[in-house]
């Protein structure tokens, strides 16, 4: 990356400012610069350069003093929340936020686990890359049962934008022609192993409403020529992606959107620049720029532009908006509705079942496939719901037991060792991803007194699972266990981990605190991700979501961002914003 694209102080009035460089911000920067806008990307964290800064990449277990574990003192002091994320380890820890530096508060009885990646690239370096379109069933859900407000858009509004971002990012998957989970523009799917194929056959024979398909993921299973031209190579199935990937085989800001934005020569980047608030001019009713605190020196500075995209992640963006107070907006910019900060959602993970599959002793696999299988939603779609609203899909997969399981067995010596040398029995598991309802009382606000070390008011997060959420989790576990028994699995065990140690936030799909809607009285953004109250202010990260569906959300953030950028540039050219 060229050094001179990094700036610190400037009086230049940019065409656009993008706040945050994660999945959404990277897309905003790419689209706006490609449309000719001089764009400043503002990021609170440090620069991370593709290949050069993947310091954990290629590290093998025995090359780390604690084999991937992190020292307890360090975890206790700096990573007490981040450690709960499955991807947190010695080779990835530098891509997670530091809990000591990024404090927030919650009520004692409502823990919320806020997982963060605060650097250039944001959580695009950390995500697991499952990528699913949302369908009309999802965009209709609030209208159907009256929870939350209706989405101002439908599937047809976003379809072409899914096409566009998928082609660039590279999504692998299988064509299935399902209305509930529309197909993407696919690269070839990853393969299923024989047990997975058998489970698919048994399930689909019993239930015409339930399909078992390979997951869809932002990995270059087979790169297209334009991916190779971006310097991205085929995925090697290491499944160590969160360490960073020099092959560029998974979608991240660094591998995919940033190179495109840089190629336009329209991009400048300000790292270590914490956006404190959006500057608002009541005379023109426009946002004119952002106030920034330098992460290292604590100095303040301002950046100016004609249009502003907030992409600082759901809660990061909401924190900035709540902190942008003026006479016109005493409770936060663009908050005339009072909806800002409310309707926080996450997905319902932490419930499912697993069982042992007999046979298939000769069969094995090679490589660490970076994606599992899924069973698209059936509950409130082509099957009835027992006693709750909305539905879920399952993540699934079959694997053979390894030393991690076999090593807990009884015995000693050569026999014990020989037993572990062979892979153990096959296990097949189903674990749910459920839709969480948008509820007013699940909310974030600025803490009245507590600040972080840069002087930003801390977020106070109040979020908990509802009765509906718990009923759904029960159904996820019961239905999974019944299904596994019905197809002949042994030792079927169901589990609701959420009862013990899975809190909201830990599914890392937080969204909804600056929702879209048709009515400015009840929503913050319109159908173009544009603030109802401030026409040149756009929010395209997860804060904009009106409901949570059950699919992983980031692909939808990408599509919405590309669509909003296109609209913003049109409006700018027409002189309307």
């Amino acid at each position, binding site marked *: 990356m060229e050094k001179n694209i990094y700036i610190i102080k400037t009086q230049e009035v940019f065409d656009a400012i993008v706040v945050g460089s994660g999945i959404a911000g990277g897309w905003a920067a790419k689209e706006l610069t490609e449309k000719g806008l001089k764009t400043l990307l503002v990021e609170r964290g440090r620069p991370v350069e593709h290949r050069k800064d993947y310091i954990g990449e290629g590290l*093998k277990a025995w090359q780390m003093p604690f*084999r991937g574990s992190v020292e307890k003192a360090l975890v206790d002091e700096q990573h007490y929340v981040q450690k709960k994320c499955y991807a947190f380890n010695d080779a990835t820890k530098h891509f997670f936020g530091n809990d000591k530096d990024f404090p927030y508060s919650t009520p004692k009885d409502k823990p919320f686990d806020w997982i963060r990646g605060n650097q250039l690239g944001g959580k695009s370096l950390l995500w697991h890359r499952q990528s699913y379109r949302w369908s009309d069933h999802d965009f209709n859900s609030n209208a159907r049962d009256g929870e939350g407000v209706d989405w101002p858009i439908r599937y047809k509004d976003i379809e072409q934008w899914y096409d566009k971002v998928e082609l660039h990012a590279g999504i692998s998957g299988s064509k299935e022609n399902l209305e509930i989970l529309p197909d993407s523009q696919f690269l070839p799917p990853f393969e299923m192993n024989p047990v997975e194929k058998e489970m698919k056959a048994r399930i689909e024979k019993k239930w015409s409403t339930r399909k078992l398909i390979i997951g869809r993921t932002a990995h270059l299973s087979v790169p297209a020529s334009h991916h190779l031209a971006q310097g991205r190579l*085929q995925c090697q199935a290491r499944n160590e992606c969160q360490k960073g990937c020099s092959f560029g085989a998974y979608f991240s800001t660094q591998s995919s959107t940033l190179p495109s934005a840089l190629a336009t020569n329209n991009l400048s980047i300000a790292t270590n620049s914490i956006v404190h608030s959006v500057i608002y001019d009541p005379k023109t009713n426009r946002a004119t720029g952002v106030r920034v605190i330098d992460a290292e020196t604590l100095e303040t500075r301002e950046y100016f532009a004609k249009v502003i995209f907030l992409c600082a992640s759901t809660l990061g963006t909401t924190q900035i908006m709540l902190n942008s107070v003026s006479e016109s907006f005493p409770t936060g910019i663009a908050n005339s509705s009072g909806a800002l900060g409310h309707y926080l959602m996450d997905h319902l993970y932490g419930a499912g079942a697993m069982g042992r599959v007999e046979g298939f002793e000769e069969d094995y*696999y090679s490589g660490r496939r970076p994606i599992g299988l899924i069973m698209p939603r059936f509950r409130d779609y082509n099957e009835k719901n027992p006693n709750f609203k909305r539905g879920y899909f399952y993540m699934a997969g079959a694997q053979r037991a*390894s030393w991690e399981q076999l*090593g807990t067995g009884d015995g000693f010596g050569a026999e014990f060792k*020989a037993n572990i040398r*062979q892979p153990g029995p096959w296990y097949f598991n189903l674990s749910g991803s459920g839709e969480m309802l948008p509820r007013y009382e699940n909310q974030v606000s600025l803490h009245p007194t507590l600040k972080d070390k840069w002087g930003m008011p801390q977020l106070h997060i109040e979020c908990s699972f509802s009765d509906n959420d718990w009923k759904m989790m029960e159904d996820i576990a019961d239905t999974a266990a019944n299904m596994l028994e019905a197809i002949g699995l042994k030792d079927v065990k169901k589990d609701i981990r959420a009862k013990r140690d899975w809190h909201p936030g830990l599914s890392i799909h937080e969204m909804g605190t600056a929702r879209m809607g048709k009515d400015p009285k009840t929503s913050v953004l319109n159908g173009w991700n544009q603030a109802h109250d401030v026409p040149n202010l756009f929010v395209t990260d997860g804060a904009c979501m009106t409901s949570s569906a059950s699919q992983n959300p980031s692909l939808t953030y990408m599509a919405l961002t590309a669509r909003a950028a296109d609209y913003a540039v049109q409006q700018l050219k027409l002189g309307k914003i």
Partner: protein
Amino acid sequence: MNLPALPSGSDGVSRRAALKQLALACGLALSASSLSALAASFSAPTDFSRSKKTLLTAKQLELVRALGDIIIPATDTPGAVAAGVHDFINHYTAYCASSAEQQQLLATLARIESAAHDEFKTAFTALTNAQQLQLLNAMEQAQNGFSQADRKGLKQLKALVVFGYYTSEPGATQELAYLAIPGGYKGNFKLKEIGRAWALNF
């Protein structure tokens, strides 16, 4: 497009060559500098300076070494001792275990010693292999005066030995099969092609 499987060897030269081959297969001309950047990111920065503290006394370490040898002995491949599992446990528990877990491990070691003295009037390491196994089997089964708590303690120790061994270089690459860069996922793979289980990456 079929890519060659990359060798998992640890020397930088073969990795470089493999990457070059990979780039060629992709029809991608990597410049010398981007290639060295790729290669550099594969030569892992190893920082063992963090592991200086120890939990165990020399005597306790000797006992853990002996127990490692009983749990995972050398066979046609190196065992726990050659993999340095006892040293790993010594540092790992000093840095990564909670004080409760540390106390549990020390209590287990003390319990094994005291049982050896009660039953055979000698140190555990001085027992015959058969006596050692008899004692440990009883402890694992919570029999002959051993409680469920003793069984739990022994299980914790075994978990540490197993973790240390199968994440060590000999454990992962000689006892099990290891592919640093598998070159893709094959679901139709037959076990007899490698004859043993894959090591996990962590």
